[in-house]
């Protein structure tokens, strides 16, 4: 997995609440058997019209935000399905961090497996970052995962919380499966105990 240490880039504002996984990557694009190449279809139905022309009003189509690396979003980002195609598309587009007041559970977990940092902040702070993002000149921010800080273009510093284990995995780009396989003797022990306690399983 890609490491995530520091990130500096433009934040795109998406104040809409409940941005769901069908908006992030419509089901049409779930038919791939690969993880890559989904970035062009990120937010597809919001981004293109019926003739596949870009809709100029959509934030990621605006010149200031085309290279955004961060999204500042409304409440409950990523609700809906478990499709990991959603973080794959986000990452493939070039976005590595999403900031909101809340995330849907599965989406939140999926982000960490793909080198994306989802940051949860209180509403007042998201509001500040949203306003900064909307104000092009202050849209560039810097994120330091080790220090757990967000620094805005005008020097404001906001700290954020992150689960210690997930932080370590992101910082070091660790592979979960490799980590778990180190515990295979504990898994074996569990299985033999369960074979007696619940043989029907």
């Amino acid at each position, binding site marked *: 997995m890609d490491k995530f240490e520091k990130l500096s880039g433009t934040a795109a504002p998406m104040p809409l609440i409940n941005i769901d996984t*069908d*908006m992030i990557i419509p*089901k049409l694009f779930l038919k791939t058997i690969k993880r890559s190449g989904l970035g062009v279809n990120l937010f597809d139905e919001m981004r293109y019209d019926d003739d596949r022309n870009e809709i100029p009003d959509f934030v990621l189509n605006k010149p200031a935000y085309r290279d955004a690396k961060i999204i500042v979003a*409304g409440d*409950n980002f990523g609700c809906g399905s478990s499709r990991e195609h959603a973080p794959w598309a986000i990452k493939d587009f070039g976005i590595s961090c999403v900031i909101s007041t809340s*995330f849907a559970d599965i989406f939140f977990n999926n982000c960490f*497996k793909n080198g994306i940092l989802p940051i949860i902040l209180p509403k007042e702070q998201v509001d500040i970052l949203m306003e900064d993002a909307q104000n092009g000149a202050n849209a560039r921010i810097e994120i330091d995962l080790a220090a757990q800080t967000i620094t805005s273009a005008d020097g404001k510093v906001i700290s954020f919380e992150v689960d210690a284990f997930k932080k370590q995995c992101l910082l070091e780009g660790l592979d979960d*499966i490799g980590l778990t396989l180190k515990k295979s003797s504990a898994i074996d022990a569990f299985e033999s105990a369960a074979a007696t306690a619940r043989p*029907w399983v």
Partner: protein
Amino acid sequence: MTATTLYDKIWDAHLVSTDADGTSLLYIDRHLVHEVTSPQAFEGLRDAGRTVHAPDKTIAVPDHNVPTTLDRNSGIVENEESRIQLEALDKNARDFGIHYYPVDDVRQGIVHIVGPEQGWTLPGMTVVCGDSHTATHGAFGALAHGIGTSEVEHVLATQTLIQTKSKNMKVEITGQLRDGVTAKDVTMAVIGATGTAGGTGYVIEYCGQVIRDMSMEGRMTVCNMAIEGGARAGLIAPDQTTFDYVMGLPHAPKGAAWEQAMLWWKTLTTDDGAVFDEVLVIKGEDIAPLVTWGTSPEDVLPITATVPAPSDFTGGKIDAVERSLDYMGLTAGQNLTDIKIDVVFIGSCTNGRIEDLRAAAKILDGQKIKSGVRTLIVPGSGLVRAQAEEEGLDKIFLDAGAEWRLAGCSMCLAMNPDYLEPGERCAATSNRNFEGRQGRGGRTHLMSPAMAAAAAINGHLTDVREMMNS
């Protein structure tokens, strides 16, 4: 001993290890796999030279992409990408030696209907699937939730999942339901009360007299939509209804193993005095037949209500409602029962079980569907279809003018050829009304099977209770 919840008990029984920071390794008893969220996981496994740790606990069934038209068994899947995904599942299932129900097997169907039907899902188990509606299996008192593809790969390789424990929420539905009110209305009422993020961070235990009186089919409908409320999982304590349903299923324990299982299953209840972090109580009598009007499952109202205005809301919801009404082509103040529909979809893992088809058939019996209303009835599995045909429900549907399809996800998410055209409006028994969910530009109103059947007859959203009195 401290009093614990049902969730605590299942969690504790599956803990492999816990690190100092609370990150836990949880053992997974059943892993269900479908064609859309698994190819990358199997590819990852192959690339790393790993194998499936417990193929005997892994079950694969294609459902999302499969055509539901009667000609599908001739092997034609016209969409090339769909075909590639189905072929990939077929190859992966066979290469790794996991249980598999291919498209032409009568037991094939939606993964969340097939698992319970075959007795793979049993009380007290941990069940995962690369699909958010895995919550369905919670109806058996199993801890069941959706996972992403990386986690699918993790479970394939290790039969465990890295988890942090959720909080406990109790949702109690007291009393009794009124006529015309179903499990679907109950679960939609809960989402209406909590909002789509209200359950985030929680596992919900549904309890109360209404739940106790409910069939297993109804309980699956309730748990199915726990995810629409944001919860990681929904749970219902197993009881005699559960045991009666499970007994004799192909993969349920038999003989001495059954007796041993029952000893444990009967302990799977929340202790008196156990503390929940959050409690919601809804009176069964207060629930009316519900429909959604917007593009979020929390946008529910009784069918007797009118379309709300953005100004009825606060905060970010104001803009969201404005956008929803525009997308849905609705005007504030309009009667919900005046909303005309073009399509009816009865099916999905929420409402594709036999009881759902019976409820729809009861309304459609001897009636004609309004001309021009395309009505798809899609059983949740081949076995549900066979059962319905044995009961003659297929005749009722066909006589009324509906299409009677083969099993699959179908128009729930429209990855197969069943989808809405832009602007088409659908009365659907599925679980999501997101923009574009049933097809680009398609408009979805969620409701119960009986309500969807009533809408089919009248060509507009209808209070099913009026049809029941006549």
